């Protein structure tokens, strides 16, 4: 479980996050939703320690991250896997080397063991034949898969995805969403996903947190989201004609 306590973040004068509280559970897909610029990425980067929160704390299974010593932080980080918005694959390395990188960096395994594990991870994300290609040679959806394979290479307990569907077509989006959900249940990870995609919310949102202008406005599940009285949330959810139609026809989940 990851708990966020009164987390605030400012860049100079500009306060981006205001007193966020949240708890993310094991084996569940926890979605942070909100418009572009609402602070989702900043929140995620504060949680994983890429940004220093101005105020507040993050607890990883009870262990405080902001108070942790250098070595404790390192240990927690080894339990974290993150998939960045653009994939953030190392472009000087092949697909296979990208996935093998954390293994070679942090395990004492031999080269062949490492490559076996990389191969396994790539098969898990349904990429059996791209091993020798470079990131510039593969499609956006494949990049996301490689990034996922790299994130799960060290068997993380905590998985973070920043906009896993951005730039993907709807079908590929659904495949990626399902993959994330399967991995979450299979490995019982605490999975946190930033998204502004209502399809993902409906597909895989176990627990949903709505962020607006750096404030947490609402949390609940995907049934509750239809009935929420929060104006900002309904504006966000029913921004598309499709969603409004679904509502007016009393579409049942």
């Amino acid at each position: 479980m990851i708990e966020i306590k009164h987390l605030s973040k400012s860049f100079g004068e500009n306060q981006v996050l205001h007193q966020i509280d949240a708890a993310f559970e094991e084996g569940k897909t926890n979605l942070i939703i909100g418009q572009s610029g609402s602070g989702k990425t900043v929140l995620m980067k504060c949680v994983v320690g890429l940004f220093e929160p101005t105020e507040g704390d993050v607890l990883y299974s009870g262990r405080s991250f902001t108070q942790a010593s250098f070595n404790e932080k390192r240990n927690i980080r080894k339990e974290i896997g993150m998939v960045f918005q653009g994939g953030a694959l190392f472009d000087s390395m092949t697909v296979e080397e990208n996935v093998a990188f954390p293994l070679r960096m942090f395990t004492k395994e031999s080269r062949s063991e490492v490559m076996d594990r990389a191969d396994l991870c790539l098969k898990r994300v349904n990429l059996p034949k791209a091993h020798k290609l470079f990131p510039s040679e593969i499609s956006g959806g494949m990049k996301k898969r490689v990034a996922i394979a790299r994130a799960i290479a060290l068997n993380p307990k905590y998985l973070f995805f920043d906009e896993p569907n951005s730039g993907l077509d709807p079908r590929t989006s659904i495949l990626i969403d399902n993959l994330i959900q399967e991995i979450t249940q299979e490995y019982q990870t605490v999975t946190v996903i930033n998204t502004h995609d209502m399809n993902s919310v409906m597909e895989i949102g176990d627990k949903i947190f709505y962020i607006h202008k750096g404030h947490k406005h609402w949390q609940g599940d995907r049934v509750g989201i239809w009935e929420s009285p929060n104006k900002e949330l309904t504006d966000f959810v029913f921004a598309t004609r499709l969603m409004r139609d679904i509502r007016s026809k009393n579409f049942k989940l």
Partner: protein
Amino acid sequence: MNYLENFGQYCLLMFRAFRQPGRNRFFREQLVREIDSLGVGSVGIIAIISLFMGAVIAIQMAANIESPLIPMYTVGYATRESVILEFSSTVIALILAGKVGSNIASEIGTMRVSEQIDALEIMGVNSAGYLILPKITAALLIIPILTLMSMFLGVWGGFFACTLTGLLDSPTYIQGITLDFRPYHLVYSLIKSLVFAFIITSVASFRGYYVRGGSREVGQTSTRAVVNASISILLWNLILTRLLLL
């Protein structure tokens, strides 16, 4: 104020880069790659520039000796001294600041804006050590060698220019370049080239590492890296010359 802040940030980054970078199995691999791109990638341009530079210096010397009291072998002597003392270390450093500096700044800058540096950090890798240390080490190893090569070619550029155009015969030139050779001048020049190598790679890495934004900013930052590195080189050239030669 801004300068001080920048300088402080630069020092902190260098401190992080030189701190024991965890278990970095990759250091040797990275180092070989950097030596290859820095060394092998720059040999051609440095050879051409050095040959032409030496040639022009020698012709200018020859053209300016009018008094019959000055022996013609002075051309060789003066070419050797200019090349060793100043041109090979400083000019080569400025050329490399443009070539290598912009390359490093845009490579690291691209890794920053595409979140590759974040990806390293999240894995618990000391990204500064991983990315910057091999580049600085490679430059410290390679740039002095390139400088020596440049000196050699510069002197021979002068030789060919003089002998092929009939300004001077070859024994006279060779008499000049062997006259009163002071190894300390070579040492002085190599010390300069080490300092310049550090400046080029560290300043460019610093600029790239802290870029924010997108590809536009990466482009701007690589230009800024070249300017910053060039000015630092000129400044340190002055400082080191005052310290080491007087």
